[in-house]
């Protein structure tokens, strides 16, 4: 195409560029809408705060803070100027421990969710897309996994696999995917009844093409909103696992702190400062994720706006 003074030069717009531009526009639109959700924004701020807290902790917390040999405070002492959140059974200040706990709790939460979403979304789309034996089997598999009660399964897996960071992440990820898979499957079924899928197939689009190019973008918003909620549940799961002594060994997490309070008689000693902060942190973070998730969902589904 020659650029001529008389003819306006027109670059052919590539399909990819067009798609990217559209995606940017819709993201901007959704963000604007999200900003109007007060609850969601509040949750987002809380989340950002905790993530920053977790990421920056190594900058101002020295590992000595967790070294029992270097403990300076009295055992199970209430909050004071020197120890803003009091001390634990070893005389170590609790404040740095609570802050440090955010790292494991959030890390496990996010990582397990990634696994859960990858498995869940794949299985969900596949079981919705493939009719016949393949899809039916996947659906059965999902249903069966859903039936098995969460904590007993987690206990069994943790016992079988042993305790390590990776294993904890895997265990939580493995037990969370069925919920996502089921929802994604239902959405896939709906998406595939749309005419453009038929057209794609008529044009020769194979299974992979249909699933990745048509179904996936359609299902994406759902998956995103569900992801946020899954993280909340994953964090609760990690807390529970740690409480039961099945968490990441030698790592501090909010769950391990609660377990510490339990195991070392904080209750009978009346050491509320040991018990409250980690629990409150869990509540805040889980609540924040829930609020963000609800707000995201409202943005994606205008029908819910009046709620």
């Amino acid at each position, binding site marked *: 195409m020659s650029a001529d003074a008389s003819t306006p030069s027109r670059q052919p717009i590539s399909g990819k560029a067009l798609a990217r531009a559209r995606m940017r526009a819709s993201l901007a639109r959704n963000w604007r809408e999200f900003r109007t959700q007060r609850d969601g924004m509040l949750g987002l701020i809380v989340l950002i705060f905790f993530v920053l807290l977790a990421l920056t902790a190594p900058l101002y917390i020295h590992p000595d803070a967790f070294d029992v040999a270097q403990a300076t405070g009295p055992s199970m002492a209430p909050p004071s100027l020197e120890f803003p959140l009091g001390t634990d059974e070893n005389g170590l200040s609790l404040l740095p421990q609570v802050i440090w706990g955010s790292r494991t709790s959030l890390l496990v939460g996010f990582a397990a969710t990634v696994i859960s979403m990858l498995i869940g979304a794949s299985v969900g789309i596949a079981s919705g897309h493939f009719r016949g034996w393949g899809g039916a089997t996947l659906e059965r598999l999902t249903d069966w996994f859903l039936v098995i009660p969460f904590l007993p399964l987690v206990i069994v*897996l943790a016992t*079988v696999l042993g305790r390590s960071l990776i294993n904890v992440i895997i265990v939580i990820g493995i037990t969370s995917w069925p919920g996502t898979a089921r929802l994604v499957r*239902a959405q896939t079924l709906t998406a595939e009844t749309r005419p453009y899928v038929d057209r794609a197939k008529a044009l020769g689009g194979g299974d992979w093409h249909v699933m990745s190019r048509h179904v996936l973008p359609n299902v994406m918003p759902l998956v995103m909103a569900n992801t946020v909620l899954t993280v909340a549940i994953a964090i609760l799961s990690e807390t529970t696992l740690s409480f039961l002594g099945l968490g990441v060994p030698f790592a501090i997490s909010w769950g391990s702190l609660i377990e510490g309070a339990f195991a070392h008689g904080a209750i*009978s000693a009346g050491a509320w400062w040991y018990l409250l902060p980690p629990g409150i942190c869990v509540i805040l973070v889980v609540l924040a994720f829930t*609020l963000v998730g609800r707000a995201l969902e409202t943005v994606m589904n205008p029908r*819910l706006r009046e709620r």
Partner: protein
Amino acid sequence: MTVADPAAAALAEATQGRRPSGGMLRYTVRRVLTALGTVVFVIVVNFVLFRLLPGDPIGLYTRGRNVSAQQLVKLREQLNRPFLEQFLTYIRNPFSSTLSSTKYNQPVWDVIYPHIWPTVLLLGVSTILSTVIGIWLGIRSGWGRGTRFDQVTTGWTLILYAMPEFWLGMLLLLVFTGGTLAIPDLFPVNGMVTPGVDTSTPAGWLDVAWHLVLPATTLTLAYLAEYSLVMRSSLLDELGEDYLVTARAKGLRDAQVRRRHAVPNALLPTVTLIFLNIGFIVSGAITVETVYSWPGLGLLSYDALRGPDVPLLQALFLLFSLSVVLFNVIADVLYAVLDPRVRT
């Protein structure tokens, strides 16, 4: 379809897969058959999982026990039999098991049996209370959407939903027992019964009830959050429906419209959810019984973890899974009873 809203996600899950079929009987039969399939799956998984244990299985099964050389040989011989043969032995009676609990040195069923009633009592009371209160809260807040009651209730239920139930239990213990804070010692710290009290007398029941208060309160609070949120969501879904306009047009009072028309429809997914939630209920039992040293299956699981007492864990896992399957079947059948669209 709602997802991130935990209540609505649960709702969607509860109502999925309900397809109309011909008649109540066929529907029930189908559901039972599916459940049996799941039972088979569970048993297989149970068996396979534990045989996957890394390391020397002998060590795992005999840890901490003084096992005579003779028993050791016998054990090794059993575990060295072909996989399939072990499996067949296992399924013949998954509970008796030739392997006994490592801790108690008794057949696993004997160990489990006395712990069943305390868990049933605790879970039963908590489930009933949380259901009734949760549903009432959900109706009240959903029908009066946006009112102060709704805002406050939704706020509190969201917080309760985000709260680890065992932490709540510990909090309650901290506040209400031991007299360590300003509040006097109101409730027992642990256990189900004060030692020495005869539980077959009314005085004994009272003692048990007194011990039951805190753990039951903990679980009730933990469960009612989700029920309330789901009921509210469910009712809000109904609010826009045309048949409510018809009902109003007939001259019914607001409360009558709510009670006779909106609530019965909104109740359907909530009721099934309660049963489908049995898995979640079980998890709550494990941690809360641990906190309160309530002598039920949950505490047993916690102790079994310490060892790990593998045969016991295996049996408990099986028991929990089977209960869940059973309650799922009940949920499905109940839904058909309540919703005529499914069974006709």
